[in-house]
């Protein structure tokens, strides 16, 4: 009996000893980071989530579990294969289990599909550790700053409705060698078919490896200002568009801006809904060229929400009151009423061009 008691005592003592040892030294010299292979993607693209865990000490860790709450909009491509992911409406719990020998770094990569536009951030992880026997031990919470911004999906120009496509092509074609008739050089732009070889900027071409030409100031305005209506409901006509259609509208807007800017033109943006920066004021970006401006527009679009900050009628009234001329407006909306049509006519009357892109049932009408 004394022997059995001694065995129990020794094993209990050893167990407690190793448990205390693990709780003191387990998390020492241990680092865990999480990152995305690309922090900026378009909706529908996939990204790799990379978990890096490094144990820089002699003591191995039998098991270590990392749990985190991820936005439910990020979809694990292989979640059917025994992943511990419990999805909710907004968040999903994701857990990874590691066994880390001493002085070892483990990198685990998960393929994630990003079907929905938005800004997604993982701010904290919970790390739990097991001891030699396998029982759960100490847990700590670690702060993290891992973010992925999902831009709207881009469409091909051929996917636009015919009217909108013709309009965008005409706006882009305004930037042509014929129209670039000013003697001042405004910068460089990609070579287009029909450009004279005298216009090639050889230094820039040699530096970048792409054929670039001098961009001359144009006497012709070729800016495109995209107006995106945030209203999902037209109470007057009891018309409604779905949030999926709104995402489609954003996709059209982003593609139009991309189309114009990639052709060397300038694009501006007006959105009358809530966005990340300001809840009650409209988003307005003046027409500018360049990829930096395009990135800024996409970044802003990732944070747009279909919550109306200013009605479309009021917005159009503001634009009419500004008395601009020579502008090209591309209005994307779910519906347009009689008053708004009048305001659009007024804009046209002031010397601007306005093209409508109606979504949902309005597009058919």
């Amino acid at each position, binding site marked *: 009996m004394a022997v059995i008691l001694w065995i129990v005592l020794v094993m209990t003592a050893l167990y407690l000893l190793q448990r205390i040892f693990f709780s003191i030294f387990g998390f020492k010299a241990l680092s865990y980071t999480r990152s995305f292979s690309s922090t900026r993607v378009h909706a529908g693209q996939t990204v790799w989530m990379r978990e890096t865990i490094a144990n820089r000490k002699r003591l191995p860790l039998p098991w270590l579990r990392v749990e985190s709450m991820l936005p439910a909009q990020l979809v694990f491509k292989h979640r059917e294969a025994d992943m511990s992911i419990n999805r909710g409406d907004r968040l999903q719990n994701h857990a990874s289990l590691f066994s880390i020998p001493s*002085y070892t770094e483990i990198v685990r990569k998960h393929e994630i599909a990003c079907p929905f536009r938005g800004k997604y951030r993982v701010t904290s992880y919970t790390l739990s550790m097991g001891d030699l026997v396998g029982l759960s031990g100490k847990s700590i919470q670690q702060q993290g700053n891992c973010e992925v911004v999902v831009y709207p999906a881009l469409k091909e120009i051929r996917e636009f409705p015919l009217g909108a496509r013709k309009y965008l092509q005409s706006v882009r074609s305004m930037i042509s060698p014929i129209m670039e008739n000013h003697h001042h050089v405004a910068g460089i732009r990609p070579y287009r078919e029909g450009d004279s070889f005298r216009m090639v900027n050889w230094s820039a071409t040699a530096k970048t490896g792409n054929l670039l030409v001098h961009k001359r100031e144009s006497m012709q305005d070729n800016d495109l200002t995209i107006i995106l209506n945030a209203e999902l409901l037209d109470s007057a006509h009891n018309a409604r568009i779905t949030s999926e259609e709104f995402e489609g509208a954003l996709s059209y807007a982003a593609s139009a801006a991309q189309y114009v800017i990639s052709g060397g033109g300038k694009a501006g943006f007006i959105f009358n809904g809530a966005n990340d920066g300001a809840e009650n004021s409209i988003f307005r970006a003046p027409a500018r060229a360049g990829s930096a401006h395009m990135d800024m527009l996409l970044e802003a679009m990732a944070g747009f929400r279909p919550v109306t900050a200013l009605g479309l009628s009021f917005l159009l009234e503001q634009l009419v009151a500004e008395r601009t001329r020579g502008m090209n407006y591309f209005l994307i909306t779910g519906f347009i009423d009689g008053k708004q049509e009048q305001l659009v006519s007024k804009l046209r009357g002031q010397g601007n061009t306005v093209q409508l892109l109606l979504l949902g049932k309005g597009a058919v009408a």
Partner: protein
Amino acid sequence: MERVGKLILRVLAECLIWLPLWLLFTANMGLSDKLRLGMVILITIIAGLALNRLPALWRKVVVIVAIFALVAFGIVNYTDHLPILIWLGIMLWRGRYASLGYWHYGLGFGVCTLGLIAIAQNEAWTDYRLPLILLALAWVVVWFVALNRSLVQRAGLLSGIATKPVMRANSKYVMIFLAVSMLAIALTVGYGEKLLTPKQIVNPNNSWIDPERFIPPPQDAGRPEWLDQLGKPKKPSVVWDYLLGIVIVFAVIGLVRFVGLLWKDKNWTLKGILDAIKSWFLREKQQETLPYIEEQRSLRKEKKQGGGVLGGLLRRQPRRMDWERLSNPDKVRRLYEDAVAEGIRQGYEFRTSDTPSETLAALERWQADQVTATHKERQSDFGNWLHRVRNALASLYGKARYSPHNISSEDVEELHSGSPHRYK
């Protein structure tokens, strides 16, 4: 085929769990009886597992009826072997566990312990003591590993994220824990036994332990009458015979039906069985499909060599060759290296991009600026020597590294004289 392999292992595990009981029950039996009981046990285990093929309700009904039949059979005909029949019933019931968890291995350990207790009471069974101790130890190890696997599965939130490498690594760690524990127990068990056994101090002057005074000797009460009644054989009730007959008939019908079902669903042939056995032996290790990509690398190279207190104590200084044994170019190299090392020791920031002559020039400038009161004497010695030989050292060092021509001993001696590092 994998299923058959698992089934065989399951049957073997069950046999091992109950091995101590079989040994004790058959201790007084002949070999043929031992084998017969062994066969009955094996058939019972297989029958218990085979019952899982039936719908749950049917399985329960069959098990209950079978247990009742066994108990009734034992009560009526084999009262002496009733425990064995109850045991068979338990084994039949345990067929519901298609796979064994850690508590089943704990049961194995418990059965071994019971067997050892029984052996301690009966000298005739002493031969079984050592095998049962070894079996009990094996059950402890298996129990720990199974418990560990279960805990790791729980750590993985029972959702399958505990992969095979993680499970294997954890089994390894628990084995290390067990090995250390057993070693510690083996080394200290003698001391522990001595420590925990209460000392028996008998004081003859203590009157309360005198049995003569407080425990009266037993008195002869005579043989009670009821004891005589027990010895007489009693005729069993006829009702039991009828009941037994009914149960046997039901059991036989059930057995025939069960065998019929098995035969009806058969999809095996002799060739099929042989092929399956062959493929099982030739099977390749299946790769676990993971829902992610995992890369692993060692950080040992990043670890500072000989770092830590122990490493510092054990680290050996690289042995430098004696000055006299060096060739002249090597002597020049030694002087250059020591000059730069001395500068670095004093705080000079060495730049790898500098050439040797640039390094010496920068070191000389730095040396002139950095003369402090505390190390003035030593720094000034080094500074004076460097100032004197800097150009010659730079030139000879270049020659030592790149020129095929030898360097004269006079040049080396010229450099060496006045050096703060006087080599012999």
